[in-house]
């Protein structure tokens, strides 16, 4: 909490009209701030003049803990950051340390990792779509999205026993072999998901109220995105055709064909369309991947004790929210000297103030939804 002592709703300086410029406090227990985020809105009547985010309520000091754990021990902490997309956090960390060790995971492990990460991307986008639609007032999409997400979590549970904080990957490869009908489950989900996406599209895409509430709300053009470091769907919705999975492929992404969806004027509606298209693309990747999962070992040549040579590396992946980067410094011991995590939600949230200037209070809720932030990752 940046500043603890503060009246709830204060009247600060008067504006031209003599009407007070109201400071309205949203959160940290507000139903639609997606976690413990507190936004201090400077309001002039209903119009927002500025927003200051007060974060840190969920700060657990993950980077300090990393300096006191071995490389393997720190892996489960990584799942607790963006708890909605735990698997992609794990993928990022394991690949970073593998890079540090100059070791490559075997191809079978890479393919299984890619499938699970893409399923996790779909699950993360489903959580985003459900809560975002709920904030704007559409009650039904939430339950449809969570019904599909339940299928994905069942696959995770069958694979590694956990649904949310899975710790599915190990440094050097995979702990568990893909269970018997892994391909069958994923295929059944992907086949069914095609019809399900159409249900969301019927409910929302053409809906004039939905368009009215999202078109030209929270506009962030390409230049601002890059300047503010906003990446992921927000950058693509602004028209930049760039995806780290294509630009610098990792895991097994170079084996599969998929499109990069982009928007035109970077408003909430475009971000909605980009994320919907991303779900379809992830589905295609999974379908291509399960056609042939190559045989072979699932764990590379990494001993039980990991002592990487002193030095440092930076490795980043395309997480559902944006670029998730790991900067790991090793001093040759079993414990990392420094682990820095580049949190996409934290940096995307910085754009909130610029995006909602001049909007109404109802739009603040929509813009926080479209940023798709998870407070575990913002606060670390």
């Amino acid at each position, binding site marked *: 909490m940046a500043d603890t002592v503060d009246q709830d*709703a204060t009247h600060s300086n008067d504006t031209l009209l003599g009407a007070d410029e*109201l400071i*309205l406090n949203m959160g940290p227990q*507000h*139903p*639609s701030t997606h976690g413990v985020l507190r936004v201090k809105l400077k309001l002039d009547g*209903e*119009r927002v003049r500025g927003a200051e985010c007060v974060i840190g309520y969920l700060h657990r000091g993950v980077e300090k803990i990393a300096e006191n754990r071995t490389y393997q021990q720190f892996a489960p902490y990584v799942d607790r950051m963006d708890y909605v997309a735990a698997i992609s956090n794990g993928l990022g960390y394991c690949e970073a340390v593998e890079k540090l060790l100059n070791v490559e995971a075997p191809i079978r492990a890479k393919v299984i990792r890619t499938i699970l990460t893409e399923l996790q991307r779909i699950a993360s986008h489903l959580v985003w779509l459900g809560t975002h*639609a*709920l*904030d*704007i*007032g*559409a*009650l*039904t999409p*939430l*339950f*449809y999205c969570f*019904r599909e997400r339940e299928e994905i979590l069942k696959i995770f549970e069958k694979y590694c026993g956990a649904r949310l904080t899975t710790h599915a990957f190990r440094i050097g490869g995979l702990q568990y072999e893909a269970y018997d009908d892994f391909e069958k489950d994923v295929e059944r989900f992907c086949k069914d998901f095609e019809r399900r996406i159409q249900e969301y599209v019927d*409910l*929302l895409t053409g*809906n004039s*109220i*939905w368009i*009215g*509430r999202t*078109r*030209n*709300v929270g*506009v962030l053009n390409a230049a601002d995105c890059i300047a503010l470091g906003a990446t992921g769907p927000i950058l693509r919705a602004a028209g930049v055709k760039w995806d780290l999975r294509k630009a610098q492929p990792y895991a097994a992404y170079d084996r599969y064909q998929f499109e990069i969806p982009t928007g035109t*004027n970077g408003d909430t509606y475009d971000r909605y369309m980009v994320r919907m298209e991303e779900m379809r693309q992830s589905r295609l990747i999974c379908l291509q991947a399960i056609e042939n999962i190559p045989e072979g070992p699932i764990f590379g040549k990494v001993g039980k004790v990991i002592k990487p040579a002193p030095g440092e590396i930076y490795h980043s992946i395309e997480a559902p929210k944006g670029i998730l980067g790991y900067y790991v410094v090793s001093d040759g011991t079993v414990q990392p000297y420094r682990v820095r995590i580049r949190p996409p939600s934290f940096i995307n949230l910085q754009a909130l103030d610029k995006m909602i*200037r*001049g*909007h*109404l*209070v*109802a*739009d603040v*809720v929509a813009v926080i939804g479209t940023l798709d932030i998870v407070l575990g990752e913002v606060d670390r």
Partner: protein
Amino acid sequence: MSPATQAVLHFLQTWWVELVSGVVIVAVVPLIAGYVVLVERKLMADMQARLGPMRVGPHGLLQPIADAVKLLIKEDIVPQDADSFIFWFAPVISMVAALTSMGALYFGPDFRVAQDINIGILFVIGVSSLGFLGIILGGWASNSHYSIIGAIRSTAQLVSYETAGGLAIICALLLSGTLRIHAIVDAQSDHHVWFIFLAPVAFFTYLVASIAETNRAPFDLPEAESELVAGYMTEYSGFRWALYFLGEYANMIVVASVATTLFLGGWLRPFPNVHWLNWLDLLPALFIALVGIYCIYRAGKQPVKIQVWFMWAVAFACFAVALIFLVPWIFASLKFAILGLNGAFWFLLKVSAYIYVFMWLRFTLPRYRFDQLMHLGWYILIPLAIVNVFSVGVALLLEAEFGWNRWLALIVTTAFTLAIALFLVRSHDKRVAAASSASAATSDSYAG
């Protein structure tokens, strides 16, 4: 007997129908409103691939009673320096307004409270418009930022949509020529057509206005959970909150009954005067019997013993009611009662259909933003309603002066109104596009 008791007896003799129905309304309507809440939750659940309340009673049938008891027991919190007199008084106003406006309504050819008041429909609208007094006072008395904003917003919404609703009702009154509710329905049976077909635009305008008037579905801004955390009801809890909640649902029933009386032919069965369709009079009994059979079919599937009995009891009740509907057919002397019983059935069927549309919209549509809502109200709905009143008037003039066939006149004028409506919507979209392109340049967004 002393003169006083004689006077009282005399009074009772003359007014016993009104008194009984009055007591029934005040006692039964909150219960019905409770069950409407249950139906809404079950429907919402069904549309969202889940089960809804299942725990209290078989299939959650006792849920409203459980809710009522819970709300009664809950502590009534009065905010610290709230205006306690008005804080206590406001929910009562909104509940009383909804119930009194039911007094003038006809729930069937002879189920009514007030004896065909000369200004029937006007009474209902006037008294139900008192409801939002309760909302403003409630918002003001709870003395918190959120509720004041919620109260102001909801009043602005109600005022602007009441105008549109009133104008839509004027169209129907033009066609019926009278304010008496019974006479309106008789007019519809004389014309052999429901007014919805003669003035469809008016019905649509009234549908939209009534949704906004009861703060529901896409217009439920005042208590939009995600922004203002329950608007004017934020500080209320326990029974006072229940009063507001039941007031809203009672209001919904009132609005649905007005729409049924005015546009959907009140207690007339479909095609009332088509004689070869007279078997339709048997439909109510048939329908209820079917429900009974379904209950028996389900009884076998109930896991718990008591639920099986309950299902059988419900089935038995349905068959009893079906019999009551059939009695007038058997005994010739009770012929007159057919219209009465069937009328009530058809009226309630139409009212529940209307309320179903309310609920259906609530589950599918997202919520309007406040300025969009006002924009829709003032720039599209009210001009459309005015043009519609004008066009229905012209149609009646054509029919009276120039001897046009009524149907032809109304079709021509409705086409004219729809053309105007299209123009209004297109200019609205152009304005939105213009405002948004302007906003894309400046940071100040959609000014509306």
